[in-house]
């Protein structure tokens, strides 16, 4: 940066697409930032002296004689304790009217943690929602998305989870948030009096889509600062990762890359993994937990975005409207927390995993009974009991408006078992039945 004053200014663009420009330039380094006609851009390809730049805010209005200067460094975010309580745009500039942050400028999207230096996640994150705590227990250092249709209240549930979680910092990375949702988050954080532990990097639908590509890395670089240097427990919320992936496909398309499934770039898996794998439990006690949202198109999880996400994250949580009770529930079949066995029965009561499995299995039997009913067949006594059980189970345990402790969830499940079934029908290990069965 010492020779910045002598930095050459280029004024001849050779090509312009909706997301990229290209020009001839020397001494350019991969990933470095540039300013093109006043807009921030980043080097994405070098071929001989032909350099391709991705323009974050889009190329609208950029003339072929636009001034181009290279900044000699990749995108950075300034990190310090001053971040707490602040709202920023995708570039890390304040949008809350407050002053710029003073602190060390860190390159975003930095290196990965050495897997050998990681620790096994083992701290329970209770949320009070039984569909999560009982069936899909969350653990600090985990990465897990909500898979939800656009009409479902995923942002509300995520805000609830964030406010109840016992963490030191909550960092929200908003990508393509509607202004209304942005204000919703802001108000919920204010109402909870939690502003001092909140940091937000926001790209709304009013901002250019390619800018979104910066948001997760901004949020996670800030998270790494607090987790690594301050040994804090950091919760990162990323919503909506589908819109992030859409922005990736725009850029790769403009660079003439061959698309793979669903017109997504072939590197989608690696691109998403780089973000989600920032979730970590550090030996020093600090941790980064990521809860994300991936919106689905009409529940289709075979689409490349949710599909690749599912292979990367440690489980997924599905929201579903339950027709029996009229409530939004956490779907017990498709939802999964892969790390749950690290805390179930270890940080929670010994009967946790068996109760969870039995209650879901019986709920599955109820679904079979329902299919029989819909097909016009007579129901057996067992079927009828299952159906009644399913209603209670959905209302008292699966609904997202439940807010109780884990022991209470387990007791509720035992009460339901005793109300509708015999011990043999639950298939639970005899020793546990002897101890917990509510006669």
């Amino acid at each position: 940066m010492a020779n910045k004053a002598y930095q050459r200014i280029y004024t001849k663009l050779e090509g312009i697409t909706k997301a990229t420009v290209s020009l001839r330039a020397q001494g350019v380094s991969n990933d470095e930032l540039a300013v093109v006609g006043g807009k921030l851009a980043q080097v994405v390809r070098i071929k001989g002296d032909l350099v391709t730049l991705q323009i974050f805010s889009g190329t609208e209005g950029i003339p072929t004689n636009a001034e181009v200067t290279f900044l000699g460094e990749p995108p950075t975010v300034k990190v310090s304790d001053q971040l707490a309580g602040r709202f920023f745009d995708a570039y890390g500039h304040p949008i809350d009217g407050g002053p710029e942050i003073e602190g060390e400028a860190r390159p975003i999207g930095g290196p990965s943690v050495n897997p050998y230096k990681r620790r096994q996640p083992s701290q329970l994150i209770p949320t009070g929602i039984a569909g999560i705590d009982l069936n899909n227990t969350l653990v600090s250092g985990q990465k897990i998305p909500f898979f939800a249709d656009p009409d479902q209240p995923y942002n509300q549930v995520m805000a609830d989870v964030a406010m109840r979680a016992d963490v030191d910092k909550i960092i929200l990375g908003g990508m393509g948030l509607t202004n209304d949702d942005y204000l919703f988050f802001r108000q919920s954080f204010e109402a909870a009096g939690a502003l001092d532990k909140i940091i937000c990097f926001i790209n709304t639908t009013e901002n250019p889509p390619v800018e979104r590509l910066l948001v997760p890395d901004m949020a996670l670089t800030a998270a790494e600062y607090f987790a690594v240097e301050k040994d804090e427990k950091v919760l990162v919320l990323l919503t909506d990762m589908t819109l992030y992936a859409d922005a990736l496909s725009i850029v790769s398309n403009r660079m003439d890359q061959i698309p793979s499934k669903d017109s997504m770039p072939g590197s989608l898996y690696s691109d998403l993994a780089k973000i989600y794998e920032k979730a970590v439990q550090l030996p020093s006690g600090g941790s980064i937990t990521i809860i994300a949202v991936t919106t689905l198109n009409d529940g289709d999880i075979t689409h490349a975005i949710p599909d690749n996400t599912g292979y990367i994250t440690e489980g997924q949580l599905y929201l579903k409207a339950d027709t029996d009770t009229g409530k939004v529930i956490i779907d017990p079949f498709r939802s999964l927390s892969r790390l749950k066995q690290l805390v179930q029965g270890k940080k929670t009561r010994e009967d946790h995993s068996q109760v969870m499995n039995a209650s879901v299995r019986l709920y599955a039997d109820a679904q079979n009974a329902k299919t029989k009913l819909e097909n016009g067949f007579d129901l057996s006594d067992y079927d009828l009991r299952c159906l009644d059980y399913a209603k209670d189970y959905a209302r008292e345990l699966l609904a997202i408006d439940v807010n109780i402790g884990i022991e209470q969830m387990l007791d509720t499940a035992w009460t339901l078992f005793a109300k509708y079934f015999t011990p043999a029908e639950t298939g639970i290990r005899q020793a546990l039945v002897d101890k917990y069965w509510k006669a």
Partner: protein
Amino acid sequence: MKTKGTVTGIVSNLVSVRVDGPVSENEICYIDLAGVRMMAEVIKVNGDTASVQVFESTRGLKGGDSVEFEGRMLEATLGPGLLSSVYDGLQNNLATMDSVFLRRGEYTDPLDHEKLWDFTPLVKSGDSVVAADWLGEVKEGWLPHKIMVPFSFSGTYTVKSVKEAGSYNVDTEIAVLTDEKGDDHSVTMVQKWPVKIAIKGYREKPRPDRIMETGVRVIDTLNPIAEGGTGFIPGPFGCGKTVLQHAIAKQGDADVIVMAACGERANEVVEIFTEFPELIDPHTGRHLMERTTIICNTSNMPVAAREASVYTAMTICEYYRAMGLKCLLLADSTSRWAQALREMSNRMEELPGADAFPVDLSAIISNFYARAGMVILNNGQRGAVTFIGTVSPAGGNLKEPVTESTKKAARCFYALEQNRADQKRYPAVGPLESYSKYLDYPEIAEYLDKTVEEGWVEKVLRSKNIIRRGKEAAEQINILGDDGVPMSYHVNFWKSELVDFVILQQDAFDAVDALCPLERQRFMLDLILEICEKDYEFEDFEKCREFFKNLINELRQMNYSVYESEQFFAYNDSVKKMIA
């Protein structure tokens, strides 16, 4: 003199280099980025331009940066001390790196050069040896680790001298060999081998003739994998691929286990090296980590090293196989490796095959699977590499290039099914779609007759038939209703549920049920067949359901009880009474 070059183009981790001399395909080079040397591999040469894939992030790299070619391919370092290690895809020792974050250009030695090993010679001066012959051995934990004539030596050599028994580090010259021309060659405990080339040096590779026990019923009983066999586990996410693979790694009857975590979650690797040092190998009573090597290139680590990771893992297995040991290689997941190939192919602007994968994907996969196998060494001893890979099919659809290519190469197929996983019927291996071609091998059948019981394969097929009949019955019941079908349909359906709940399903998190030795599997299958081959009469289907539900419950309790314990036999008696 080394060939030099300069960087002329950069797209992500694909870098074009103009070279001033000869380069070869797959040659390793180092790119100098302001003093940091980043390793890369040649993947294409066109005129004086080599395309190289960089095993690091290329951030900050510039056109004109200098490159130095090494004149060798990517090599694995082989010697005592590989076991219990945690390596990245390029075999850097992750445990000896200092910082929390991985630093570019930080390469660490795979082996400890200080540690002393107790060496015993196995040859004497004047002996005649060829590549892969055993010169001596050291104790690596409990394993006799052979020091071999380097695999790269061709022709016959005469042992000029061999070190006497004693404690030496790996760099000590333990033998001097004289070749046919009379030149002397020094041999230490360490040798290097290019990972993309299979290690030969054995007499023959016969058909596998025995099974490798995993303690997982749905594998051992229904779809056994041979020692030296190949298998693969495709399944959508959330179906329990990783849990199943870890179960195999914990319980598999092998001397050496190499786990290649290829483009998967870092926390899964953490789980292995947190739990394995605590867990006990059920076959030897030693700590599991003592027989395990982990190669990890997690999904956030550089993409190009993903491909290297599976080859490095295979090379280590072949190395131990040459010592006459049983090795098991688990790769999770080969789809990520295929995707890494796709990313590079895409950046090189090659014409794509199906789903944008490179057209030679199928050949690459089958070549890799072919490196597994049971071998008879030159000295007549057996060694084996059993390989099980997982596949992560996009969208859970098995009609995609990686699954289809793998299906052609692997002999066992363990299809994980979404609907079984949804019903928490774990392991979610579909009983009818999955197969083991080894059940058709007469030598395997003969082996099972001898080691399990006479007529075992036929019994296995009978149990599969019960499941098939049950599935047909279930379909009829769904169409015609509970009352619309004869009672025998209900009985058939519940018999298949019995096999499902008692044999197929297994609780990987239960201390007792997780590991089911073959002898116990025999006991249970015999019991289940005894139950299923009886005729039952019921007044109505409710009674039928109740009878089998109770039976299933007793049998599940039996699975949870210690084998041949008082409790176990109590449940057994109770089951016998119920069916009397």
